């Protein structure tokens, strides 16, 4: 049976393609008065952008709203319903620090406000193709809060995807994503069999053949999902120095960087061009994701098993194990914050810069948290002991990366943490019906 998604009820964040390039903002809110929060929702609902026109958007901008567990509690949700939310969502991401590897420099006590605090109750998620349309959407948020002192803006995090589509380490970002049953169109080469909608939205059947459900009335959770938000600081100068120190030539620098990520900086996958960058492949959506590992590269001679892209999405590589990779997929929405470090600079300028990622998942435990704990911050699933993701892993304790090569494998010792967690929060992204139910006093 063909899967039909209720696009007019799903907030835009999940399905809508972000305009490329784009700018955006997360506006963080604290709720002190439930009545004011309900009024805010009531005013915002008609303005919330849905996924309905995601293929042919009227304006290239959107405004969405997300709520934390504490925010739902402030809105007056009954304890019985609150208790029905997944444990990972209820306890907040900071409380999961040990499991998620947010230790040492990444410890929640060092996170940027309001992450890890008691104050983060809701956030407006605003994305637009230019600064003017972004301002227009932010104005909608501001207007909706007029006369509501019980809802306070406690921070704003500006994000963007620069015109060259590159994140701070210099890699083209956002190439690979899952294809969801019912999203329309056909999968691009390499996206594989469409994933069941219940992996990404509540109210639909998931890959286990079960209806993905939430707590309380069906209205609250149908077409809702969770975003697992991560604010990740990138030590760009340190990354550049590391490559410079470990490589013999500039070409070698690029090879080491590519072996750590699994793609050249252009986005061209090692799987399709293992020895040199081919930016034409990187640019071509029909080719830049068209690969698998099990038959083509079981030993990781092209794309190392421990490289970033093969860890976070092992594709078909784990089919001889009990792990069913299809139940551990996330839909990743990444954007950068902070200015780019100019080319060639090898000294840290002390400026905050990094990536804000929203991982869309209907089940944070077996999706985002599984990927982070089992694949990013551990190596056992690929017989790599304690080794972690060389790019985004926490290297506070262990610090080596080994990749196969001819005639002998190469090992990079003394790996620093190139990425440091500066914030994390699981948030709930209700459907329009769910927002209305909350606005009407949970009735």
């Amino acid at each position, binding site marked *: 049976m063909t899967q039909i998604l209720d696009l007019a009820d799903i907030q835009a964040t999940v399905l809508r393609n972000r305009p490329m390039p784009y700018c955006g903002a997360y506006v963080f809110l604290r709720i002190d008065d439930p009545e004011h929060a309900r009024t805010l929702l009531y005013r915002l609902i008609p303005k919330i952008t849905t996924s309905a026109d995601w293929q042919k958007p009227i304006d290239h901008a959107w405004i969405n709203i997300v709520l934390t567990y504490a925010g739902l509690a402030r809105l007056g949700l009954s304890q019985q319903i609150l208790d029905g939310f997944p444990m990972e969502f209820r306890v907040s991401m900071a409380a999961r620090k040990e*499991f998620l590897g947010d230790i040492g420099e990444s410890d929640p006590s060092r996170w940027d406000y309001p992450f890890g605090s008691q104050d983060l109750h809701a956030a407006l998620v605003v994305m637009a193709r230019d600064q003017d349309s972004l301002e227009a959407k932010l104005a909608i948020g501001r207007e909706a809060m007029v006369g509501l002192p019980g809802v306070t803006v406690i921070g704003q995090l500006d994000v963007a995807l620069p015109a060259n589509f590159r994140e701070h380490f210099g890699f083209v970002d956002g190439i690979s994503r899952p294809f969801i049953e019912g999203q329309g169109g056909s999968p691009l080469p390499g996206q594989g069999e469409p994933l069941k909608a219940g992996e990404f939205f509540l109210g639909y059947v998931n890959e286990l053949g079960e209806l993905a459900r939430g707590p309380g009335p069906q209205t609250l959770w149908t077409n809702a999902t969770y975003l697992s938000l991560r604010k990740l600081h990138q030590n760009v100068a340190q990354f550049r120095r590391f490559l410079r120190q470990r490589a013999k030539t500039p070409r070698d620098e690029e090879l080491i960087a590519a072996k750590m990520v699994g793609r050249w900086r252009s986005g061209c996958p090692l799987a399709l061009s293992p020895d040199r960058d081919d930016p034409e492949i990187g640019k071509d959506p029909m080719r830049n994701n068209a690969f698998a590992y099990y038959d083509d590269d079981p030993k990781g001679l092209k794309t190392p098993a421990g490289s970033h892209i093969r860890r976070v999405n092992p594709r078909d590589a784990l089919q001889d194990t*009990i*792990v069913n990779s299809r139940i551990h997929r996330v839909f990743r929405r990444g954007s950068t914050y902070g200015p780019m470090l100019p080319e060639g600079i090898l000294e840290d300028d002390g400026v905050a810069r990094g990536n804000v990622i929203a991982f869309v998942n209907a089940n944070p435990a077996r999706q985002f948290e599984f990927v982070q*704990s089992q694949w990013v911050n551990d190596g*056992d699933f690929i*017989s790599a002991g304690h080794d972690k993701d060389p790019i985004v892993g926490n290297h506070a304790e262990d610090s080596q990366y080994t990749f196969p090569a001819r005639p002998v494998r190469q090992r990079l010792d003394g790996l620093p943490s190139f990425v440091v967690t500066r914030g994390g929060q699981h948030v709930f992204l209700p459907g329009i019906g769910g927002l209305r139910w909350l606005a009407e006093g949970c009735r």
Partner: protein
Amino acid sequence: MATKVIESERTAMAQKVTRHPDGPGLRIGKRGELTGIGKVTPDGARIFRERLPQFQAEAAYWENRIGTVQSFRLFLFDNDTRILFSIVYDGDFKPYVEDLMNDVSPWMDQIFGGVWEGYTNFKDPALMDLIRNAQVTAEFFYAAYPEVSCRDVQKMKRLSAAVSEMLDAAS
């Protein structure tokens, strides 16, 4: 009240035993233990013994797929009225529950179905509750090489064989 440990050369190698960060049981390094006790159904012991040889014969196949179990033991005791399972494994258990349910349920159902009271099948969403209720945390736990997983051992065996082969070729 816990007695204070008297430091000496015999305590210098003490292993750090913690609660599992995301699941039941104790943990040392990468090694975790999961022990549980359940009731046996009235006809359970007979069924158990009838199926045991097949279950035993298939163990290596299934455990090889799982790849993280160091040891697994089952006991019937108290005149066959109770069953005890004791597993020592690498890494985390809870994150893999859905994968285990998906993959090894035929094997698990073979030994626990109709034997362990309350057990319906390994894919039952209530399974975690059944395990949680049966689970008893070990009072004492020691693990040799807690940092070396089953997969590490397999890799070391391959490496050792390759080195031997190279030395043979050179001699």
